[in-house]
């Protein structure tokens, strides 16, 4: 990673794709293919709501499809596939810390759920 100043971001493109200057240009077929995939996944995520796999699985299925779509957008529309790996690392790190934040907070919230329950009514009994 120490050589960006010498080799700024001359990201190598796969052979056979068109270029201009130092950065990769995405070919139209790929843009359209990604677009089509996104449409299909949108359809799938709506359609799948007609099936119930139970609360937890439903959420993870929906999230899984969303992650797949997000990955497509990030890799192709946002050029991460051809970009400096550092930019991808930035994106992944941010996601990781969001997950960390949500994960630990959720863990605590789950554990303390009992504390939202009001205590039993003090029974009107004489103290010993």
């Amino acid at each position, binding site marked *: 990673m120490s050589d960006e100043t010498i080799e700024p971001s001359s990201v190598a493109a796969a052979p056979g794709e068109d270029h201009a200057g130092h950065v990769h240009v995405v070919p139209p077929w790929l843009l359209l293919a990604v677009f089509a995939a996104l449409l299909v996944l949108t359809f799938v995520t709506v359609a799948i709501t007609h099936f119930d796999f139970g609360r937890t699985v439903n959420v993870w299925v929906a999230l899984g499809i969303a992650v797949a779509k997000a990955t497509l957008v990030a890799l192709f529309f946002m050029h991460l596939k051809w970009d400096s790996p550092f930019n991808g690392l930035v994106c992944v790190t941010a996601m990781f810390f969001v997950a960390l934040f949500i994960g*630990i907070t959720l*863990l605590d919230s789950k554990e*303390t759920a009992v504390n939202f329950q009001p205590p039993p009514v003090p029974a009107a009994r004489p103290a010993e």
Partner: protein
Amino acid sequence: MSAITPPAHGIGLPVEREPSPPRGDNYLTHSRGILSWLFSLDHKRIGIMYLVGVLTAFLIGGIFALLLRTELLTPGPTFNSNKAEAWTFYNHCFTLHGAVMVFLFVIPAIPAVLGNFVLPIMLGAKDVAFPRLNLGSFWCWIGGAIFFTYVLLGGILNASFGWHLPGGYGLDTGWTFYTPYSTGQGPHAHSTDGTIAALLGVFILGFSSILTGVNFIASIHMLRPKGMGWFRMPLMLWALYATSVIQILATPVLAITGLLLLAERVIGVGIFDPAIGGDPVLYQHFFWFYSHPAVYIMILPAMGVISEVISTHSRKHVFGYNFIAYSSIAIALLSFLVWGHHMFVSGQSPLANAIFSLLTFSVAVPSAIKVFNWVSTMYRGDIRFTTAMVCAMCFIVMFTFGGLTGLFLGALSNNIHVTGTYFIVAHFHYVMVGSVLFAFLAGLYHWWPKMFGRMTDLAWGNAGALTLLVGFNLTFMPQFIMGAKGMPRRYATYPVEFQGYHVVSTIGAYVMAIGLFTIAFNLLHALLKGEKAPANPWGANTLEWHCPSPPPHDNFPVEPVAGDPYDLKSWQWDEATKQWVLDEQRARTVAGTEPTVHHH
């Protein structure tokens, strides 16, 4: 300016020499007029403007610290015989002191002032990657700072002098803005009217912090010169890099927390306020997810400064470079895993308590490594007691003690006893104030000749630093004892048994003030009457000492080539000319070898 050696382009490697800039043309004199400063894109000028702003904030925060300590001299009301007014005054004062010091002084002090000034020069670059963004960040800071201070100070002035400053609500939530007190849905809502304005101020300040972080990360990635691999960066740059990572990852969470709080107050959306369906403990998770890492935004750059200063003024290669560099990154990442240790008694689950306690101790280890490495750097050195070095040694004292007292707080059962007491107050003042302030001063004294081309007076500077050290310990050592005995924090009045400690503490605060004024006069004296500084008064080898003092507008006419930043032996004192001279032969040899002299 004969004292200035011609800029050495790199470590004596053959580079095309351009004529030195014309005599006297440096960044200070490059252009004239107030506007040439206010809208300057020059990172050095922005750094100096931050310096003025940050010191002003420090002065305001400091005055209120003295007012607080004076109020606490006696258990009863001191300034105002009406109890209710006296308590409100005290509560406003501690909020202002805490909030101004945290958001306007400790967080920006080292990254925004020293970082802005030296980072590009250390990189051998002409500027940071995004100079316009840098200026934008400065203006965000100024805007946020004025707004924030106005709201907080306005309330105190209105209440104390019967003024009618519009919008001067004042705030008494403390810098933590805990809900539901700050959301004001409960009783006494009017006492937190300033929340909205203050949060807007914090939001704007957050932008400033984020933009600086973006700038530093991009600069360190993209602008390093030839010869400066990651492991040849000065440790200050590692520290600033780690700091920026935290600023990037943590500050946005503060922003959204602020927005959610605003939404609660303005449109009644309940996420944190139980009266409208929220949960206050969730607020604490949000708040500390930012604010714990923010503690490391404060201390990491301080560690960077200390690494530079100790090595330079001991004239020794820094010991264990890789460990220090890695520990900066380790601290930055681990700092995100420990936020819950502020919430051990808040109703957080025992499981989370245990996890956070364990992780908290994991941060202690990289911090300990750094201290050992700094002390080892002094071993077999040739130590000069410059004011920078004295401040750095004071830093080690403060940080060792402050850091180690963290062991009490990390241990669950002890934390439960002392949390929310003066023990906490003393602990974080040792770390966030004692340490960071001494590191900031060490950095100022170290780079003052570079910033202004003037040397500071040694005796007065050292006297000031030592007075500060005495005053600081006098102020905060009794607070540890008070805290252990059970004196809660943020108390306007207290049981009489604690008065003795409070009196000593207040006296200490005044001693600190004397020390700080001595330092202020010392620096101002240097600015006006100080001896002219050579390009490299300390014989240091990081790149900023390779350009004249003060640096020209463009820093380096040609990008220099970097060598080992701690190869101090390449600079030899020349008794005849009374300055440090680069041994080019040696520098060339070192630059061609490994960055550190270790052999596996």
